[in-house]
């Protein structure tokens, strides 16, 4: 997966992407005509105030929600052309996820949580790989601990290990530091960018933290569901803004 040849087309692209939902009797458009393309290896920050549609956009980009109009191209594949299972398969092959609420399985140990995507896709040396990634995020001594026994920051590290262990080509992160205090959040952010850089992964990051956004190579700003700005960062490497 990781070593598949680079294609000329962008890894991720949105074409006139929009989402309309029904609230009671009214049609409410929560996302209007999003349009961008992101080359492989780049990172995109989606920023905006609460309720501006960031998570909605992320869900559409990752194919876990369906647009009302427009389309998403993931690795040259139109998501609109795929059914739910097809999108799931594509996600399994290409994507890793990090969530604000961690989304670890509460009954599983750290190791088992990282093993989930690996075993789901039948990766050969799953345990070795999972252990390696947990060591990578500094939890080598906590393999057998369940989320209950881990702090928020530690839980998010497990989530990072899970996201990267599958050798994804793109990682979707929805406010990965949103549930953490500033210091811990900063650590997690550092770790994420470090892993991302090392693996050469494409990153789509939802945040309302401007500092974090500044560390991505691209910024897409939403306001009331409208894409009001899309620009490359002035300091693409983003070291401390």
């Amino acid at each position, binding site marked *: 997966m990781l070593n598949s040849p680079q294609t000329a087309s962008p890894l991720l692209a949105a074409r006139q992407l929009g989402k309309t939902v029904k609230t009671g009797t009214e049609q409410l458009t929560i996302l209007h005509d999003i349009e961008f393309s992101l080359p492989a290896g780049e990172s995109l920050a989606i920023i905006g105030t609460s309720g501006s549609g960031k*998570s909605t956009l*992320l*869900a559409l980009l*990752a194919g*876990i*929600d369906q647009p009302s109009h427009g389309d998403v191209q993931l690795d040259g594949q139109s998501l609109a052309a795929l059914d*739910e*299972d097809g999108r*799931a*398969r*594509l*996600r*399994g*092959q290409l*994507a890793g*996820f990090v*969530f604000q*609420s961690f*989304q670890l*399985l*509460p*009954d*599983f140990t750290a190791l*088992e949580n990282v*093993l*989930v*995507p690996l*075993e*789901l*896709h*039948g990766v050969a040396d*799953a345990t070795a790989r999972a252990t390696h990634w947990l060591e990578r995020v500094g939890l080598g001594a906590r393999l057998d601990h369940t989320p*209950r026994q881990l702090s928020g920051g530690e839980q998010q590290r497990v989530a990072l290990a899970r996201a990267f262990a*599958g050798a994804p080509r793109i990682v979707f992160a*929805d406010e990965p530091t949103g549930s953490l205090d500033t210091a811990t959040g900063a650590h997690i952010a550092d770790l994420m960018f470090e892993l991302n850089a090392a693996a050469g992964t494409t990153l789509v990051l939802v945040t309302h933290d401007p500092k974090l956004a500044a560390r991505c190579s691209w910024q897409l700003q939403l306001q009331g569901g409208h894409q009001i700005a899309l620009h490359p960062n002035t300091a693409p490497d983003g070291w401390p803004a």
Partner: protein
Amino acid sequence: MRRLALRFLRRDLAASDFRLLLIALVIAVAAMTAVGLLADRVKRGLTGQANWLLAADAALISDHPIPRAYLPGNGQAGLLVAETATFPSMVRSGEQMRLAAIKAASSDYPLRGKLETSLGVVHAPQAGQAYIDRRIAEQWQLKAGDALKVGSKTLTVAAIIVREPDAVIDFSSLQPRVIINAVDLPATGLIGPGSRVNYRLLVAGAEADVARWKDGIHSRLQRGERLEDAQESRPEVKKSLAKAEQFLQLAGLLAALLAGVAILLAARRFVQRHYDSVALLRTLGASRRQMQQLLLGELLALVLLASIAGGLLGWLGQEALAYSLRYWLESSGNERLPAGTPWPWLWASAYALLLLAGTAGPQLLALTRTPPLRVLRRELQPGLRLGAQWLLAAGATLLLLWLAVRDVKLALLTGGGLLLAMLASGAGGWLLIHLLLKLPFAHWRLALRPLARQPGLAMVQLGALTIGLTGLCLLTITRNDLLDGWQARVPANAPNHFAINIQPDQVATLTQLFRAQGASAPVFQPMIRGRWMAHNGQPVNPAAYPDDRAQRLAEREFNLSWGDALRADNRLIAGRMPAAGERGWTVEAGLAKTLNIRLGDTLVFDIAGSSVSAPVIALREVNWDSFRANFFVTGSQAMLADQPASMITSFYLPAEQRPLLREIANSMPNVTVLDVGQLLAEVRRILLIATQALQLVLGFCLAAGLTVLAAALELNASERSREAALLRALGATQGRLRRLWLTEQSLLGAASGLTAGLLASGTGWALGRYALELPVGFNLWLPGVTLLAGALLATGVSQWRLQRLARSSPGELLRN
């Protein structure tokens, strides 16, 4: 993927909802396995024994030598065949002679059961030998090797008879038995035209073979010939057995259905707990099919585990029961129960699968439809049509009920009782809770708020608790009231002997004989043989009746009696008993139904060559379990008193008064005494086993009921913990929390208990009255007891779980 599935299974095994699912399924399988095994074993044991009473699996009985054409043919080599001829005759030893009941048997006799003699268990004597009754041996001081003359043939006494398998059915009076080999029969010169011989062709073998043989000759039977098998010859045993089996099946199923309620609740919790996992897995690329496989695999593993554990538990339970009854089983002179087959267990496992599919299937299917978007939008979950779920559960319940009892009426009645319990407890309990909220007790209001806030959940809890308690109460009632009622129908001093063929002028002598022994004199009833000739002017044509039973009833000669008073074990259900001087018939209601006889119909019987015609003026219900002599048809005194009759009586004779029988035999050789003690013992045995088995099932029901409580608690555990965190954060102490919950649970339990008590009393009454036809009263004290029991049980079971919640710190609670 397989490793992931195993991982999920392992983790789920540690989760309380999954364990509750497992426990509930184990209970269901165990209860149904135990009941099924027991019923099957007892049934086969009894059938086997009933066959012993016939010394065969089936017999062709004839008053003339059996035509060779009836012998099993070429294609039926698997069948065992024996023949007997029984008749009264004089036997001699030296100068002495006396009447004996001779049985000439072919060498393979008996085919079923045991012929026990002083030599041990044997078959018919060899040619030239005889087995003799102990009474002859004692009377004439005979021992093995002595000579005995039967007719004109001299035989050697080979053994003394201890027990003969088919003595009960063959009841050739109390004349002492002499068994000889059939090959010696011609040489005795005793068989000639006009001699009263009872010929039997005995057949035994595989069930299907025997059935084929019977089918083959059934249509060819001539006058004086009839087929008999063990079941047909013992309707009392068969009826008791069927009732006991049905009752047990129902009780076992009740445990399973209670477990089903627990499964329904635990499955909801299981499903809720897995929304996030499923959403995550789907986000991480699992297809819906993979999710289905994962869940299906887990459920199959669940059923497999439950099947193994439950099967083992059920088997152990019934084995323990059989063991605890062994003394009783063996002391009745019978062999041990036959070993069980795996069928009841397999059935129970299949039922459990059906139960799980019916109660949890749709929820689990919906689970696989969890949208992956839930990882971002927590509130999303698949549409769960709970209405459809309940409907399916109800359907599965009815199907299970019907499978268990194979009786639509009983299944509907029980299912209706359950549905009623569900509705009534939901609504009734809810009303009670509302009433309590109106009371000026701040503590109660605060305690009941969680219930009031979530009416749906509260109703499920109330319903579950009520059903659990109703089940328990129903069993308590049934165990006491229903069984008491049932037992009462077979009193301890039920007659164990019949005496027939008593001449009217012997009644006084016989009464004196009883008095002299210190026994109370029995009641004598006249008995008249009559052939049914016409029904409403139409000649009776047995072939015209659609079912076998009716045909058989119509073609046989009736034993009629007369009298104008209704007997104590009869109940008038239509018409009235005859007035003095009136002419009329009274007919047993079951017979009337089978033969389509209605009140007012005219029946003609041929009695001793003359026709007696009269209308039917009464229909009676007869308690056959009383074991007293009863008649399908009786006539009024005015009509039949002058007809030639012999007398019949039934009486209870304790073992120590048995010598009386010998006196009767000696002084009145024409009187035939039948010992039905063995038959009675069989019925009693069924009752005993049923009572014991019910206790075992009660244990399973209790367990299932408690599982329901635990599952109901598990279902709202997370809401409760959030609420607890909030209350603690607002300054409530652990003690306060605990008191609040205690109040909530006890009020909930009390409300359910009250409802359950009322429902159980009603259902028990209805079941007894309509399904089992037993007089069971409405139990008035029960609701009070269940109110208390409900409160106690609810608090008791909930405490271990709630203690844990109350002890956790507010912070911890918020984090989880």
